[in-house]
């Protein structure tokens, strides 16, 4: 499993300020939920996300990763809501006891389109933004550096942790630990694995804490950064315009309904 799905291709999308991309993602989410029609999501995907992916040269990874996540959800959504949607009256297809309703399919289409948009937009952000840059940009924008530390540190720690867990698993198997068929007993088998993993964690934590203190982590001084995050006036403007569009997407239909 790849850590931090970042794919570095040095495209213009990659060079955007991470906060700009994050604001874009959040604005898209709001717009797509505020305007419930499925074709709104479709326009965003086809008109914004896919072109961006092409410019970023991440079209392949986007489809691969996005598809892997979306496929089970979309299939289940269509099946479940198609078959069991409570408000379903218009029968579209029938097979014995099972009947698919058009209301159910429409519901699945609307919800599904939104989920597709949500997932593809998030994956695109992750593919085009190095986590270190995202953390630096957010810290510069006012996020506590403690969050940045925790997130980056965890991302880099997980592979080492996983190899340690694998090593413990191997050691236990060498000692004759077999995985029983009964699921409840399988849970019991977890303990000899968890024990060493978690208890070994505590010595590490002591030493890591000491090392952090020695590097001035508890300092209350105003932090500086070695490298500057790229930004531009156009992006600064966009970071105001996009949320405004999102707010409009929420407000305008409400006003429309009232009138």
């Amino acid at each position, binding site marked *: 499993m790849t850590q931090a799905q970042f794919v570095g291709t040095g495209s213009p999308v990659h060079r955007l300020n991470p906060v700009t991309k994050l604001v874009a993602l959040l604005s898209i989410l709001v717009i797509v939920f505020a305007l419930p029609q499925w074709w709104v999501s479709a326009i965003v995907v086809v008109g914004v996300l896919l072109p961006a992916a092409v410019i970023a040269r991440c079209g392949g990874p986007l489809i691969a990763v996005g598809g892997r996540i979306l496929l089970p959800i979309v299939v289940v959504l269509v099946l479940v809501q198609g078959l069991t949607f409570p408000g379903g009256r218009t029968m579209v297809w029938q097979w014995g006891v099972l009947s698919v309703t058009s209301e159910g399919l429409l519901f699945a289409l609307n919800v599904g389109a939104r989920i597709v948009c949500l997932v593809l937009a998030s994956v695109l952000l992750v593919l085009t933004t190095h986590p270190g840059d995202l953390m630096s940009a957010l810290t510069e924008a006012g996020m506590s550096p403690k969050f940045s530390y925790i997130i980056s540190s965890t991302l880099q720690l997980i*592979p080492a942790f996983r190899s340690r867990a694998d090593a413990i698993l191997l050691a236990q198997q060498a000692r004759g630990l077999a995985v029983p068929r009964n699921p409840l007993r399988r849970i019991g088998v977890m303990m000899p694995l968890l024990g060493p993993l978690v208890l070994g964690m505590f010595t590490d934590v002591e030493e890591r804490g000491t090392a952090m203190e020695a590097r001035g982590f508890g300092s209350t001084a105003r932090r500086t950064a070695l490298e500057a995050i790229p930004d531009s006036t156009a992006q600064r403007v966009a970071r105001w315009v996009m949320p405004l569009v999102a707010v409009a997407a929420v407000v305008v239909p409400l006003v429309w309904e009232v009138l």
Partner: protein
Amino acid sequence: MIQLADVSYAYPDSGRFVLEHVDLRIEPGTITGVVGASGAGKTTLAKILSGFIPHVDGGQLSGSVVIGGRDLSGLPLAACVSQVGLVIQNPFNQISGARYTVRGELAFGMENLGTPRDEMANRVAEVAGLLRITDLLDRSPYELSGGQQQLVAIASMLVLRTPVLVMDEPTSQLDPAGTRMVFGVLSRLRGTGTTIVVFEHKPELLHAHADRLHVLAGRRIAASGSPGEILSDPRTDQWGVSATRYTRAARLAREQGLVPAEAPLPVSFEQAAAFFGWSARTRPPSPEDAR
């Protein structure tokens, strides 16, 4: 520069004293080694010197710990840390994980303290050059060998320009290649003016680099002197300090009457060569002599 007077300490959960009436004086700008058996209290003393005891570990600490004229017990941990840098045994746990390149890792401490950008870039370049890790600057710290990671840890402390640097058994979790890397760096640190205190197990390497050695045994400083004096002292076994291989060979030779009893025992290879009379002129025994 560093002055410990009548320092005693007991950990909070045991109540048993690990150190009793320790007196220690270290001159500024020197490289000092502290040797002792496992469990003699080296790590405890290292933490006392760097302020982590009592600020983090708690317990009962008595006596005075004065560094650069300031008593550590009156200072908050942040101030102690700016006076004394600490390098510990485990290279992996010293990588913060907060940065993705060695360059970023070196800058991390300075960023926390609010150092200006130009100053950070200068110090990173300078320290990386000094420790000869410039070619590692763009790599991830997690890809490096243990020895390289330990060099990064030392560099991360050096960029902070603390007057004192304490190293607690920096090579004990490294392979021989890593150990050589770390000790190779020690001699280069001499010129920086930093006062360096190394707590170690491997006396051979200390002999080449340290100006002075102190022995921690029986919960106090049992002896102090030049590395040559300490390591050839007959009490090394009693202290739990392993003598160098040359000293051990010379002791055996002395016991068997192969060398005069008064000759001072060698500690390093060069001294051993002189002691045993090895030179280009003397011929090592040939297979025919053995018959």
